[in-house]
């Protein structure tokens, strides 16, 4: 029995590594003119440039952004003890996009817009601040995190309001509007190596912050009083975890825009495989999120090629279908959703 409990998560980890590596390889091979083995492009400088400067950072970036969202989803569900909590329903993604919108409005006025390192960093910082503020407003409005319905309603209110604010700000500036439009749909097309490096850094930082706090999340599954009686620093851990959640959401949203459902679905699918304590769930949900967004990105590139679909559109449709399926299955079992 012990072996089963260790082997199942280990097996899932191996499986997801394999999926990730093959997904990245496919990502390097999927072009606008059809499939093409990347090693064939090695000899032609122009083709190789497409592979190394466009397809590879795009695929890796999609994986990293998905991993950040999956991690954020796992943390949100643990901190708020709510299986429906995700970066979107808590309003943090809308906060992040408002941060991006305000940053763009200020930055575009002051000079030429380039995707330089510094600009990426500023964008991520703005998204992080926006996401953190949004989660704070949501929890303030819902007066705590215990009440599921109140939390979700507050998240929806904050999400809609902040979303309206970003629309308004982007309408004021046509050049911002153009960028924000692709941003709102969620797009992996513009991912560059600096963006990948930034997300990788954020992912490592988030895992390093969240992993040691996993046992607080485990204890919280038994209720707040029990967690405190077990000597867990619940209040300070909660603040640290919400900040981590905001950082993960901000880092992902700043690079790929609004990509729905990855954060919600990734931890669910890991749990469906095996009931896991958070020290396993946190890294595995990140891997699962990465694989999900990488797969969605591959689909977005190939489904209607040569046209490139916005990846956020795909995850929204696929995620919506999944939730619908789950809802009807739960109703079939007679369990209220």
């Amino acid at each position: 029995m012990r072996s089963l409990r260790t082997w199942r998560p280990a097996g899932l980890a191996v499986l997801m590594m394999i999926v990730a590596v093959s997904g990245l390889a496919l990502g390097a091979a999927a072009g606008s003119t059809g499939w093409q083995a990347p090693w064939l492009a090695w000899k032609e400088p122009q083709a190789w440039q497409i592979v190394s400067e466009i397809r590879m950072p795009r695929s890796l970036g999609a994986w990293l952004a998905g991993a950040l969202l999956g991690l954020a989803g796992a943390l949100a569900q643990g901190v708020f003890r709510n299986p429906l909590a995700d970066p979107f329903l808590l309003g943090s993604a809308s906060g992040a996009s408002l941060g991006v919108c305000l940053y763009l409005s200020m930055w575009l006025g002051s000079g030429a817009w380039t995707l330089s390192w510094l600009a990426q960093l500023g964008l991520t910082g703005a998204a992080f601040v926006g996401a953190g503020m949004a989660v704070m407003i949501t929890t303030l409005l819902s007066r705590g995190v215990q009440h599921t319905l109140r939390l979700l309603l507050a998240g929806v209110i904050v999400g809609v309001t902040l979303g309206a604010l970003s629309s308004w700000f982007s309408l004021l500036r046509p050049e911002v509007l153009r960028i924000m439009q692709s941003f709102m749909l969620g797009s992996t097309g513009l991912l560059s190596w600096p963006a990948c490096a930034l997300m990788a850094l954020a992912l490592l930082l988030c895992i390093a912050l969240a992993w040691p706090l996993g046992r607080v999340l485990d204890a919280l599954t038994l209720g707040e009083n029990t967690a405190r009686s077990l000597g867990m620093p619940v209040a300070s851990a909660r603040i640290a975890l919400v900040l981590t959640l905001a950082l993960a959401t901000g880092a992902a949203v700043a690079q790929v825009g609004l990509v729905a459902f990855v954060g919600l679905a990734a931890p669910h699918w890991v749990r469906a495989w095996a009931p896991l304590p958070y020290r396993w769930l946190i890294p595995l949900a990140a891997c699962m999120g990465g694989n999900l967004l990488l797969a969605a990105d591959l689909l977005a590139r190939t489904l209607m090629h040569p046209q490139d679909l916005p990846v956020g559109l795909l995850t929204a449709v696929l995620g919506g279908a999944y939730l619908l399926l789950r809802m009807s299955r739960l109703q079939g079992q007679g369990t209220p959703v």
Partner: protein
Amino acid sequence: MSLMSAAFEAQGLSVNLGGRSVLKGIDLRIAQGRWTCVVGPNGAGKSTLLRALAGLLPHQGQVLWQGARPAELTRRDRARRLSWLGQSEPVAEDLCVLDVVLLGRLPHQDWLAAPGARDRQAVESALRAVHAWDWRDRLLGQLSGGERQRVLLARALAVDAPLMLMDEPLAHLDPPHQADWLERVQCLKAKGVTLLSVLHEIGVALHADDVVVMQAGCVMHQGPCGDAFSHRAIEAVFDQRLAIHAVGSQWAALPVSTPDGV
């Protein structure tokens, strides 16, 4: 009783919840190594008293655990000294039984360390004590209310603390498992553990050593469970709608259908 040191001591303990005074200046001494039950009508403040004694509620007045102020102990020391079992706290469904009980060992583990041999041993003996060892790999969501409560009891036992505070520990348990629990309590007492629990079922509560009778945020009476004064105090807080009868060497509490008695 005065010769024994107190496991819990409260002096002028008051709690306000949402502007309402729920505990009104309670003075209490709970003897070490005994099982004490708190009884009283709904809304008397029993659960609040337990939470305040556990240090889980902001309160006025003083609480001492074995003569020490909880606030002066380290967080880990507090967690090792006192095991808490709350009443109907929402619990995640997708946790396996073994992992739940293993959480009871958190106070004994280093921050990043994996559970050791002692932890596994404590978990196994706790699960065997509630007869749940055989289905330790099942998910909490697949269990009945009584089975789930036994797992939560095992979680509280796994802490291996000298002080145990339990709110309705026997909720949903069927009579055989209640009897098992009463035996387990004797074992714990033999090891010097102090148990303080809220029990709404008076017949079961009278199996304890001592009883604390509460009404409207005050302690009305404290005394041995076998004492006639305790019985009269319990009957009084329930408006004489309950009568305690001797049945062999045990006590039975039966409802009285009219205020005039049977």
